[in-house]
């Protein structure tokens, strides 16, 4: 399967939140009871039940007010921090390139939530026992609910009425996104940017923005944490080598000492 992607064009989004509802519907997520926070943005945050939500931002622009809408969900990184640190194989790359997840393999350790540069994975673990599991968007690749493998679009894309969300081969969507960004620059949006083309090795969710990512509340220059690399690629190999050398060295040492001291004892007698 070729690398797939979702393209979110923020300039075409009306924040109808059909995607939020379709996501819950397809992925069997419950609605969350919330209270009014003085904004139409709802629910307030991602959770194990809310894998996708639209963020609303009011941004001043030379005396003008802009109302910006940002998709908040898993970015499906090519070099995903969560996959790198997941100890049990619960998080993995789907053949489509999306970062998929098998909750039956989750131990609830929550490393994914702490090593994600986008703060996406959420847990409902008990604080004392630590029991519980993580949940996040799988781009509709959850086993048993896999739309991608069956040739369908993700639920959020399928339901989008304005064409803000499109799905297809990543390569093609990158080209589409670049064209659209060029168009926006020509129209006077000089900071227009295709987010996700290069970030964290390239993400499988791409954003067309008519302004810089920070205006949209999106992390600029996200990175897999240094601690993840130091831990997985340096410390672990050292750990295996240290244990192996200690065990082998001591086995040799004990055997030699045993032979030597035994012969000494015999010689002494």
């Amino acid at each position, binding site marked *: 399967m070729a690398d797939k992607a979702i393209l979110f064009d923020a300039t075409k989004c009306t924040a109808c939140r059909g995607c939020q509802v379709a996501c819950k519907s397809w992925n069997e997520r419950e609605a969350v009871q919330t209270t009014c926070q003085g904004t139409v943005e709802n629910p307030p945050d991602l959770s194990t039940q809310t894998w996708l939500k639209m963020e609303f931002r009011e941004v001043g622009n030379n005396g003008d007010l802009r109302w910006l809408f940002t998709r908040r969900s898993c970015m499906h990184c090519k070099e995903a921090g969560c996959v790198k*640190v997941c*100890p*049990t*194989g*619960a998080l993995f790359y789907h053949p489509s390139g999306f970062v998929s997840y098998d909750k*039956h*393999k*989750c*131990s*609830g*350790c*929550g*490393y994914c*939530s*702490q*090593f994600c540069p986008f*703060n996406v994975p959420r847990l409902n673990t008990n*604080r004392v*026992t*630590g*029991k*519980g*599991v993580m949940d996040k968007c799988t781009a509709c690749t959850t086993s048993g609910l896999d739309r991608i493998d069956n040739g369908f679009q993700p639920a959020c894309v399928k339901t989008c009425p304005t064409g803000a969300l499109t799905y297809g081969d990543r390569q093609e969507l990158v080209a589409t996104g670049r064209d659209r960004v060029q168009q926006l620059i020509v129209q006077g949006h000089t900071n227009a940017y295709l987010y996700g083309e290069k970030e964290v090795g390239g993400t499988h969710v791409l954003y067309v923005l008519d302004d810089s990512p920070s205006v949209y509340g999106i992390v600029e220059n996200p990175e897999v*944490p240094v*601690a*993840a690399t*130091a*831990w997985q690629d340096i*410390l*672990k190999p*050292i*750990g295996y080598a*240290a*244990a192996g050398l*200690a*065990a082998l060295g*001591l*086995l040799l*040492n*004990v055997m*030699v*000492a*045993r*032979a*030597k*001291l*035994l012969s*000494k004892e015999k010689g002494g007698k």
Partner: protein
Amino acid sequence: MQEVERYRKRAIVQHWLIVLCSLLLAITGLFLFVHWFGPAAWGGTSRIVHRVAAVGFVAVPVLYMILNPKSSLEWIKEAFTWGKADLGWVKSAPTYYFGFDIIPMPPQERSNTGQKMWMVVVIMMGIVLVVSGGIMWFGKGVVSTGVFQWSVFAHDAAFVIAGAMFIVHVALGAFHPRFSEALRSMITGKVSVHYAKDHHGKWYDRISGGKAE
């Protein structure tokens, strides 16, 4: 055979209780450290075992220290008291531990240099493991992700150091022919006078009031 007391009963009980907790912690920790063992952690039961054992790992030495403050303090002091005999140990050890007596081993205190190294590792890495583990247990979502990330790193680094030294400890304590009475002494609490003189000359002189020879 004449014997001398090396460990008190309560010290022996403490030792094996810590062994029990440490092994449970190490095994359930390895489920998350070694990717091949990952399936053993599915569902998260091993993480609960890890936390129960962690409580024991902290409670046992803390209770021991409260009940036996004097001997605990002495033990800690001993671990960090280093002198000339330690230099002699370093010179002699490489051949001595392979069964040769080329460079004579200078008389050692109650704990020899190698044992003190292990004690220091246990104290220092124990502290690192407890602090970083505490952050991982109670700090998720409270401390910054950077602090959490480096706590995980510190937790695993301390485990690697303590784990490698643990292999040394078991090999020497239980299997090495030079330390024929080490394991027995951690069960019965006693070693023969001959063994005490041979391995811990300074200590034996001290407890026997210099009567030896």
